[in-house]
Structures are given as structure tokens and as C-alpha cells.
């Protein structure tokens, strides 16, 4: 299926949000997720199933002043 991850098209063949995050981040404990503009809490990643066209924002901490 085709997802929009951080504003870019991404082909993804997994099913859960958990699988997607594991495939793009080495430090998932500090990743924060928005799915179609709503925050998805960490304890729901596993059970959250993705579908074609979902918009996902994955953010984390970076240096800043």
C-alpha cells in the first residue's frame, strides 16, 4: 500500500504502525506519532492497522535552542 510518511510517499507492505516505526527508526522509544492528524500513543502502535493513503508524521528530538 502507499502511505504518506513525513510528507513523502512511501511504499509499505507491513500492517501495523509498530512495524512501520521499527523499519524507519533505531530509537523508537523517543518517536512520537501522528496518524491522520491524531496522536497515537505508544501502547496502541501494535494494534493500529494502517491502510492505503494514511498520512503519518513521525517526529523525534533534535538539537535546538
Amino acid at each position, binding site marked *: 500500500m502507499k502511505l504518506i510518511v*513525513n510528507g513523502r510517499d*512511501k511504499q509499505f507492505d507491513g500492517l501495523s504502525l509498530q512495524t512501520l516505526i521499527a523499519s524507519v527508526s533505531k530509537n523508537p522509544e523517543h518517536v*512520537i506519532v501522528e496518524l491522520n492528524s491524531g496522536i497515537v500513543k505508544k501502547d496502541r502502535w501494535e494494534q493500529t492497522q494502517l491502510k492505503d493513503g494514511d498520512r503519518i508524521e513521525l*517526529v*523525534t528530538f*533534535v*538539537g*535546538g*535552542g
Partner: protein
Amino acid sequence: MQNTISQIQDPLTIAGETFTSRFLLGTGKFKNKKDLADSIESSGSQIVTVALRRIDIETHEDNILQYIPKNIKLMVNTSGARNAKEAIRIAHLAKETTLSNWIKIEVINDSKYLLPDNVETIKATATLAAEGFVVLPYMSPDLYAARELVKAGASAVMPLGSLIGSNQGLKAKEFIRILIDEIDLPVIVDAGIGAPSQAAEAMEMGADAVLANTAVATAQNPALLAKAFRQAVEAGRLGYLSGLPSQKSDAHASSPLTGFLYEK
């Protein structure tokens, strides 16, 4: 009996939490993570700022949090926000990690001078303070805006010393002095502080703390400059507490003007 100098207790208190350090360090722009970790250590900072960004799904780069000791208070900034709504969204995302409910509101809608938008900052502060965040707004030093931030529930105000990243120092000094005089919240001078002497100048004037980032991160030896800032902030604070004597336009001898050897 008067306290001896070594017994002076002068903690910085923000939202009921006390800190012995009055120097806050930003974590942006460091060339590498070792410089960042070394600078945090030598700065003595107990509060550091970080930002939130989209993860780079190509590079899988390191998470910055692993370089920040756990006992240091993390304050997430809302950089990238152009209005109150975007700042609130970033704050809500930051809260998901439950690492800290401290948020530095930073709303910038001018790409040339990067000045904070006080009006949007006040709106964001009111919403987030009501939700239970500890809100420290970055602001242009204006008395009326600062009073509105107090009413909105801010826990401190963070006026800019000069343009962000400019290293120009305390260009806004006289306006910050008014905030120090009139606002009953900690005043933390943020932005534009490019040298330890400028940090000391802010502290001597009575600022409660100073935040620096660009100067430290872009110095040839960041950890050394972080240490210099730490000492300058401490020296400036002691100068303020000492009750500095006023400047005079004429000369006053330091040594007695009597008892000279040539007197008859």
C-alpha cells in the same frame, strides 16, 4: 549573624523547582555529539532545550536524548511554529514522551529577523498553561506583552538580548531592565548572547538566568566556552547580589588623601 560568602544560598526557582545553575544551554548546531555532551557537562546547566522535528527516514540518525544526562531538565522548544496553533500542536506532541512538561514557546513568523511574535506567543502560553504545561515563552522584550504573559500563566519570561544567533549581546538591555524591574517572574535572557562578558552583563543587571546556544555550539572549543559562560553567569550573579556601586563621571581616589610622606 550575617552569612559568610560560602554559605550564600541563591537558587533559581521556576514553577516551584529549584536549580543551582543559572545558565541554560541550547543543544542546536553542535558539530558533533561529543562536543554537545562535553559542553553540557562543563556548562553545569541543569536545564537544556531541544527541538522536535520529523525523523529522517532515510538516514536513521541518532536520537539526541542519549547524549543528555537523565538528571537534566529537558525543555522542548516549539521552533518551527509560525502561530499559536502550531506551537500548541508541537507542545502536545512533546508531551507524548512524558519526559518533561516544560515547554519553551517560540513562535516566529518573520524569516529575515526571526523575531518572536508576542501576540501569538501569549495565545499559546494561555492555552498550554491552562492544560498544565510549565510554559517559558521566548519573547521580544516589551513590558505590556510580558504582563500579558504573566496573566496567561507563564512560569518565566525569556526576552531576547539581540537577534537570535547574532552574537550581538545585550542590544535590548534597557528594555530587559524594565522587565526585570516590573515582572515578578524569573527573567531569562535568551538569544544573541555571544560572549561570557555579555552573559555577565545581563546577570549584573539582575536577570535571573541566561540561555546560550549558538555561541557555544559554534566556538572552536565548545566545552571551554560553556565553562566560561558558566563562570561568567555565576560572577555576574554575585556582582548583582553584592549591590554594585553606581558609575560616576569624575574621579575618586582609592587610597587615603591624607598622611602623605611629604606633609610637614
